[in-house]
């Protein structure tokens, strides 16, 4: 039976003295369906916004105002490592086995968790990197200096590259600090897009591979965070005044593609999808569930509210964590597929030249495949030889149609032989007659 689970993190100490909630828990793993419950917790962590990375086996949490990343093992349920970095981490994201981090100095650091290799770029941003988003091919970094840089992930991870890594392009239409960045699932050069929100009350939809700004949305208040629907059908934005906006991409007036207006036309978004009560406060983080029907928001007073996308008048309070909620991430209900599983991570060390990859293969399936049997036999196995030789024999099919045809064939051959014999005889007589007449 599947269950919907999500992970939430808190930052800072408990807001009110409540002995029911443990004081030092920093990361919660909740399960929503069939019934809400907290499945497991991790202690001693204070995670700011945009600093959580979750994989099948580990949880990576950068600490608030510190140059540490805490790594927790989901398989064992305990803390696996404190990893120290040269600079304070401001934002973090996990792509495959690589942890991409943006620092407060404007640098980008990449840590391969299975080999321990650490790659860092020079500071290409003037201020701190406030949000990072990645696909297997690109990394996007948004910073407080209102720029978004697009990097190529394979180029950053190249071994022994002499040149210093540079961003492929820079998206600079925004005029104030970037607060949120979200990428569409598509990676082709025609249909990819990314959504960025900034403190200048705007949200721009870009094609990050060509660098074009496709659409600009204006909000009445400054947006704090953004989330895309899992099928990229809608953009969900939470603003500073406590209201939530849900903009559909392909509604009656589509924002992108055929049927939409020119890219320079600005769209005003004015109708909020929902608003929180003033005692709850604006949502500092939000996330949509995997089927796109449920929205979860985390608030600075500790509440996690659940909204239904279609029936949107009043949210239900799911939990109160008694500390500011800073990240909410849904876990995929489907098991991850991949050739290897990371059981323990390798801490980064920049001095090494030779790296070793540490991972665990999935256990072999119990049925022996043809390859396994060929491999295990010495020389050629008997069955392979027999099947190869048998392929050279003609098939002796004796179907009724064939035998009929064969009989008719025989009869015709008989007729031909008789005719030939007759012809020979006549020729013989003719030749005799001719020789006699001479």
């Amino acid at each position, binding site marked *: *039976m*599947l*269950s*919907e689970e999500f992970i939430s993190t808190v930052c800072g100490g408990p807001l009110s003295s409540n002995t029911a909630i443990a004081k030092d828990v920093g990361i919660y793993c909740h399960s*929503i*369906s*069939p019934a809400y419950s907290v499945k497991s917790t991790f202690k001693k962590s204070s995670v700011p916004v945009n600093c959580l990375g979750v994989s099948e086996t580990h949880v990576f949490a950068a600490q608030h105002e510190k140059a540490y990343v805490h790594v927790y093992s989901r398989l064992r349920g305990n803390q696996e490592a404190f990893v120290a970095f040269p600079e304070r981490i401001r934002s973090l994201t996990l792509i495959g086995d690589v942890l991409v981090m943006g620092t407060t100095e404007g640098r980008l650091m990449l840590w391969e968790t299975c080999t321990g290799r650490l790659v860092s770029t020079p500071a290409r941003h003037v201020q701190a990197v406030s949000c990072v988003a990645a696909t297997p091919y690109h990394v996007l970094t948004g910073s407080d200096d209102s720029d978004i840089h697009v990097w190529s992930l394979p180029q950053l991870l190249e071994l022994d590259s002499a040149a210093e890594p540079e961003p492929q392009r820079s998206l600079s239409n925004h005029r104030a600090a970037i607060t949120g960045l979200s990428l569409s699932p598509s990676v082709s050069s025609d249909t990819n897009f990314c959504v960025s929100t900034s403190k200048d009350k705007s949200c721009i939809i870009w094609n990050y591979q060509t660098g074009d700004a496709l659409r600009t949305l204006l909000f009445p208040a400054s947006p704090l965070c953004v989330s895309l*629907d899992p099928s990229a*059908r*809608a953009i969900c934005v939470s603003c500073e005044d406590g209201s939530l906006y*849900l903009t*559909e*991409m*392909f*509604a009656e007036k589509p924002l992108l593609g055929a049927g939409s207006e020119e890219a320079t036309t600005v769209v005003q978004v004015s109708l909020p999808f929902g608003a929180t*009560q003033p005692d709850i406060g604006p949502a500092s983080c939000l996330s949509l569930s995997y*089927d*796109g*029907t449920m929205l979860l928001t985390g608030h600075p007073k500790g509440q996690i509210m659940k909204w*239904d*996308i*279609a*029936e949107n*008048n*009043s949210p*239900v309070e799911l939990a109160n964590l008694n500390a500011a909620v800073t990240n909410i991430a849904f876990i995929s*209900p489907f098991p991850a597929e991949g050739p290897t599983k990371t059981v323990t991570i390798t801490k980064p060390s920049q001095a090494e030249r030779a790296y070793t990859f540490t991972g665990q293969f999935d256990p072999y399936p119990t049925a022996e495949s043809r390859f396994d049997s060929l491999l295990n036999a010495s020389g050629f196995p008997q069955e392979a030889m027999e099947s190869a030789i048998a392929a050279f024999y003609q098939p002796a099919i004796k179907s009724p149609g064939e035998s009929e045809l064969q009989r008719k064939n025989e009869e015709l051959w008989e007729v031909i032989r008789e005719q030939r014999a007759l012809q020979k005889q006549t020729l013989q007589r003719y030749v005799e007659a001719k020789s006699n007449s001479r």
Partner: protein
Amino acid sequence: MGSSTKKKKEKKKDFQKAKLKVGKAKAKAANFTDTSFKSKSIVVNQQTLVTDGSDPVEQFKQNLSLAINAKSDNQRRDALAYITNQLSATPPNDPVGTSGVLTKLLPLLSNSSALVRTQLLKLFRVLPPAEVGPNVEKILMYIRGGMTHLSNDIRNDTLNILEWLLEVAGDEVVSCPGGWLKTLNSFSSMLGWNPSVGSATSSKGWTLAPKATLGSKKGPEAQARQIQVLAKFLQTGFRAEAPLPHNPMAYWDNIYRLPETPNPFAYLNLFGTPRDEDSEMYPDRISRQRIFDAKWRPAISAGMESAKKEGGTVGRAAATLDRALSVGLE
């Protein structure tokens, strides 16, 4: 000197058991400690609310909590009346939302005071119909509890509330998980038409009224009302669905737009507990007809025939049930 009889008797007394006398309490042990206690509580029968009308939101919430926690029935009824007024004002002043109101007030369905129950029904009638739909499962749970309550009056009032629910959200009632079969189960326990007994009843005695009902004091009218509401329920369940108008954009909307109904993937039951036959969803008319035919038709037909033979109000109600069945199952 040797030990005297007095000393011997004293030693023997230690090993003698005390004789128990009939009609007298057993002797208490020597180390008996009395652990009984008295508790006293202060009950404020009529709370004096300072209604200075400062904050309508706060007042609404205060009345909501008063409706649940007040000790006196009159106060509960007044609190419910205030909430009803607030909800029927235009625009309705509802800071909690229909779901919140329903969650808090549904337990009052089986409240022992009749005034509270009638006021609750009036409140429900004021709720916006579109928002009642998503909460149907919760409401049905309490209605089923009310239908099988020991008290007659609560059962009757619950039938009224079921009637309201069928008017407002009939389709959701019969197609929500557990809505069709579990409600039929409660109807049968109320009327005594048990499917396992069904055709095995032979007519003994000069009245065929089933004796398995839960204490039918006011026999005929209550039973007639129950059969009437059952007929209405079956009518709603077997209602022919109107064909939807053709929407040329339906295919594209399914791909590119967000879903418009709440919880659109409920029929897949991906993340919920596996449902047994009783709590399964029967979203269309054909599946409801099929399961009704399989499980309930003999029991309800047998009960209906016996009710018709009774005559009077019960017979008339049974006739409407008969009509509903024949129309529905054709």
